[in-house]
């Protein structure tokens, strides 16, 4: 599903974390944690997978797409096959939960009838049935992140990227979000999650890739935070 071959990315003019010669293969349907200290380069890997950044060297392939050779105008179509969740939720404050999810369908040109059918389904799936018409500020942090997960999942992507999705949540809520991601993982969706929440990593017992100073120092299936 995901293949990183000798991927190197430096930021000569800023102190954003760089990565050096990253080699990873992730199978379809896998659930992978990227862990490591702040500034190790975990989020850079997410940016590279999203094609927000292009590597200086190496090759990135997602599915049958060579991301490094992707033309600019093909990037939007590529991103539609990827769902994304972030620490800060990134919801539109002036839209309800349902509208936030529908927005993702709207802007890629899906007809309204599709949104009407799919949005309640996916909100039910993330456990927000009955709260469709609440605005983000009327929802708790955990519920807002559920909306974000619903939006990421509404197009049934093959790959879900989660950049510290529990970073702003308390431990109990974090566990609920992890259960949700686990459910999504069981549908066959590949999940790549960046985190430094050791509790979660230790409880989930999934593959753990540890990054330090831009390099992979550990790659362990059914690993712990260590």
């Amino acid at each position, binding site marked *: 599903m995901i293949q990183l071959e000798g991927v190197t990315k430096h930021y000569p003019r800023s102190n954003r974390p760089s990565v050096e010669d990253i080699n990873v293969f992730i199978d379809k349907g896998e659930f992978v944690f990227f862990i490591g200290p702040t500034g190790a380069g975990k989020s850079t890997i997410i940016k590279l997978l999203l094609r927000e950044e292009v590597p200086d060297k190496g090759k990135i392939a997602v599915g049958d797409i060579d991301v490094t050779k992707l033309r600019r105008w093909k990037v*939007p179509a590529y991103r539609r096959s990827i769902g994304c969740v972030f620490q800060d939720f990134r919801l539109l404050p002036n839209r309800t939960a349902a509208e936030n999810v529908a927005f993702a369908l709207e802007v890629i040109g899906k007809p309204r009838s599709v949104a009407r059918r799919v949005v309640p389904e996916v909100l039910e799936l993330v456990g927000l049935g009955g709260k469709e018409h609440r605005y983000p500020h009327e929802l708790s942090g955990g519920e807002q992140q559920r909306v974000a997960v619903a939006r990421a999942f509404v197009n049934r992507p093959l790959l879900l990227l989660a950049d510290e999705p529990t970073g702003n949540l308390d431990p109990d809520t974090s566990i609920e979000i992890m259960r949700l991601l686990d459910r999504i993982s069981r549908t066959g969706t590949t999940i790549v999650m960046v985190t430094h929440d050791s509790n979660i990593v230790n409880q989930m017992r999934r593959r753990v890739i540890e990054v330090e100073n831009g390099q992979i120092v550990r790659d362990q299936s059914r690993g712990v935070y260590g």
Partner: protein
Amino acid sequence: MRAKYVMSEVFLGLWRNISMTIAMIITMAVSLTMLGSALLLYNQVDVIEEYYQTSLEVVIYLDPEIDEETTAQIESELNQSELVARTEFESKDDAWDRFQDTFKDSPDLVKTVNADQLPAAFRVKMEDIDKAPELIAQFQERDGVYQATNQKQILQQVFDILGGAQKLTLVVALVQGVAALMLIANTIQVAAYSRRREVAIMKLVGAPNWFVQAPFVLEAVFAGIIGALFAFGTLVAAKFLVIDGQFENLFSLMPKIEMSAVLMLLPILAGISAVISAVTAWITLRFNIKV
């Protein structure tokens, strides 16, 4: 559905930043008014030239002491010339009549002149008025000729004035145009900043680039077209109030600026303004919204 979203974003964007929007429209309107005036003047020079082309003459004034024989010689020489289409003799009496008629509103001026002071003349219609200097060169130094004048030269001064006015309006249009473009760029930057959340999410979920950019580009195009409408309104008002109104007498010597010429400006100004605004917005976006 998407069109509705884009349109609502366009108006929201313009409204959210209303002072900048108004500034953008005013500058745009001033610039386009100047550009429109320049185009009208350009067109008017052609119209005037065409209008006078058929009525312009070379006038050969004769010496007051000329005898009838020399007058007849000059007339036959003129009639033989290939450059000349037609000659018409204007005697001293005819000249006096014409003078009195031309200045009938200024009896004081007429009183200071008496019939004897006005020379007789040949009024010569040319085959081609542009060859007037040749004919004048032939006759200027001839015995019995007091002076040979080319009416085209007098008209040339009018053209020079119009040309000067045209250059001035073009310079103002250009300077205002640059200001308008900078305001557009600034407005787009502010709009991109205030919509950064939406833009980030749209890019994340894979909205096509044209869709992400459309609200911004249309915002600029909309302001540009409103600016063009104001400019057009100003020009129409100028035609009725200034040219047909206040300065009617001043313009009575030359053909009027036709309403059709003013109407033609609407699509031209709107088109130019829309395209330039769109391009400016699009270029600004390339620096402000990274894919």
